[in-house]
């Protein structure tokens, strides 16, 4: 499958939209500001240039009107403002206050107007930066006066303005993005809370609910979510109750069956086929009873552990009880104990049952119990049950703790298929974990890790 680029998240999209909006707005404002400011500045510059040119033209005219004064002398008598050049066109001759540029080309833009007898103003691009050109006819001295002022101040101002506006646009865009991020964060924060609650619930905390809110936009979501969890909780409880109720209803009939069977087993006048039938019934009833007890045990575990039932117990004592009912209680002698003081806080009947299940699992499915040991380390203790079987393939090691799962998918017909799931459930309820590994020298190794209880605590 060809991987598609990941779709941007809601938060990224909102942030990008805010940034884009801010960018467009700031560009629009910047351009508007720039255009009108430029217009204003240009007009101001033209007015200044015109005023200056009239004043200078009057001086030049007065100079020329004085007899015997040459054009150069008249020009020299006038001090042009900085950056301005003066040109006089008289009788086909060009006179200039500067030698940079030929007057003819520079003043071309206004010459037709001036030739027509009126004052003209225009811009020329021949200089860098542009220059404003003012032409004034001086008919009284048969001359034309031109003043070319390079608009470098204006240019610098406009450049600064453009830069300032660009910086503003960038800042506005960034601010927009930040605002978008904050706003989307604010909008998404209830969603994060919902996500957290959903995660907790998925992890098994069915008591988790969203806190009530007086925000009218969120109250519907909160109410619906809590209702959904309530419904889910009720459903799960109903299912669990159903299993428990069914198991419960089977207790009395099963007891009747086993009691009646006990009577049959005592009968001496049964023929061999009947005896065989009684044996089969006995085996199946034992299996049935074990399965029922396992189902009931699971039901009890699912309804949670009562704090009041937790008792500080020495690990060695748990092992002793677990092995006492196994077919190899002698193993106890060879089991290195953890010594007094290594205690766990457990519901004793439940934990013993779980350990008995592990021992029984080794005996029934693991080719026999190899050894049992307990190792305390740090703040926990590992109880290790090792068997003599072929071991559990790595792919099966998690699955075997599921209900009705059997290693290799085979039905051996001796267990209820619930033994190891009871182990897992019990250990998890006690804040521990259980896993299956391969033992050194073959066989499977089941490890139950339980947190050690605080030392010095003594059961009453």
């Amino acid at each position, binding site marked *: 499958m060809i991987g598609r680029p990941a779709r941007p998240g809601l938060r990224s999209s909102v942030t990008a939209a805010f940034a884009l909006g801010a960018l467009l707005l700031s560009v629009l404002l910047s351009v508007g500001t720039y255009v009108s400011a430029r217009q204003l500045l240009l007009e101001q510059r033209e007015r200044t240039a015109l005023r200056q040119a009239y004043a200078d033209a009057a001086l030049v005219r007065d100079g020329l009107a004085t007899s015997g004064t040459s054009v150069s002398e008249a020009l020299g008598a006038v001090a042009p403002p900085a950056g301005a050049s003066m040109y006089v066109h008289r009788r086909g001759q060009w006179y200039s206050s500067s030698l940079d540029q030929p007057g003819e080309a520079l003043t071309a833009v206004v010459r037709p107007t001036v030739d027509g007898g009126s004052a003209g103003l225009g811009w020329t691009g021949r200089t860098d930066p542009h220059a404003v050109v003012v032409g004034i006819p001086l008919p009284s001295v048969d001359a034309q006066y031109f003043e070319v002022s390079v608009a470098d101040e204006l240019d610098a101002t406009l450049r600064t303005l453009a830069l300032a506006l660009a910086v503003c646009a960038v800042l506005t865009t960034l601010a927009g993005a930040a605002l978008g991020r904050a706003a989307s964060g604010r909008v998404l924060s209830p969603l994060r809370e919902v996500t957290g609650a959903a995660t907790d619930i998925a992890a098994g905390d069915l008591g988790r609910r969203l806190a009530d809110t007086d925000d009218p936009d969120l109250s519907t979501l909160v109410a619906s979510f809590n209702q959904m969890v309530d419904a889910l909780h009720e459903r799960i409880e109903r299912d669990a109750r159903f299993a428990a109720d069914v198991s*419960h209803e*089977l*207790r*009395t*009939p*099963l*007891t*009747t069956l*086993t*009691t*009646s069977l*006990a*009577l049959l087993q*005592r009968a001496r006048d049964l023929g061999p086929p009947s005896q065989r039938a009684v044996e089969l019934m006995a085996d199946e009833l034992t299996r049935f*009873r074990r399965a*029922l*007890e396992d189902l*009931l045990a699971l039901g*009890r575990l699912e309804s949670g552990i*009562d704090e009041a*039932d937790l008792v500080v117990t020495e690990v060695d004592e748990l092992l002793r*009880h677990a092995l006492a009912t196994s077919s190899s209680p002698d193993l106890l002698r060879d089991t290195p104990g953890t010594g007094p003081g290594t205690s766990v806080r457990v519901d*004793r*009947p439940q934990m*013993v049952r779980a350990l008995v299940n592990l021992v029984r699992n080794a005996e029934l499915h693991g080719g026999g119990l190899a050894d049992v040991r307990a190792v305390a380390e740090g703040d926990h203790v590992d109880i290790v049950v090792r068997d003599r079987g072929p071991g559990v393939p790595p792919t099966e090691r998690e699955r075997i703790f599921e209900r009705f799962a059997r290693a290799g998918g085979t039905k051996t017909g001796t267990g209820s298929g619930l033994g190891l799931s009871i182990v897992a459930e019990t250990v998890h309820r006690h804040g521990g974990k259980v896993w299956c590994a391969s033992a050194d020298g073959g066989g499977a190794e089941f490890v139950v890790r339980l947190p050690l209880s605080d030392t010095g605590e*003594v*059961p*009453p």
Partner: protein
Amino acid sequence: MTTRVLVLEDDVALRTSLRLVLEDDGYEVAEAGDAEAALELVGGTDVDVMLVDLMLGGVDGFTFIRRARPLTEAPIVVISARDGVEDIVSALEAGADDYVTKPFDVAEVQARLRALLRRPALAQAASAPGEPQDGAAAAEVCVLDAEEGPLVFDRAAAHLRRGEREIHLTMTEYKLLMVLSENAGRVLSRAALLDHVWDRGFFGDERIVDVHVRRLRKKLEIDPAEPRTLVTVRGLGYRLDTR
């Protein structure tokens, strides 16, 4: 003389199968399908031991036990599908002596009946558990509390007297007091008490001991909330202090 067992169970099939097995064991069995009929049997005839279901139509098993207790001291074994700790404790506090949850193995019920019916012979009891204290075990009458009362435990007659007042003991209470008084002054663990009084030592059953100790205290102590005769030794068990 045959031992009479009363089976109070509303499920006809289970009741019948229990009767058949118990009769095969040589017991004389009286059946009752509800508490009223059972109470009549308890009041009218001699019953040595009772098997009682808790969930019955009409009057429930707890009420039956409370009403039957003043009429007889015969041990009561509860047979119930309810396996909650609170059910077990309430049944024992109501006056039951033992508790078996369904589905049970009938062999287990038979064993418990035998254990409860075994009347502790004085000579036999004196040798176990552990060495008795001088004077305490030898005497058939033992003064538990000379200061107030006095409180006297008459082992041979199986009764308790505080001053002029006679205090009634059930079979289990009697056995428990027997073991404790033989070992007066020394601590007995729950497991040891379970072993000697109920003949077994499984894990979860240790609560039976606690409940019976509580019941016994109500009869022994002036103030059961602050026991001075039957004291708890934290983390170890119980001890009987004679004064």
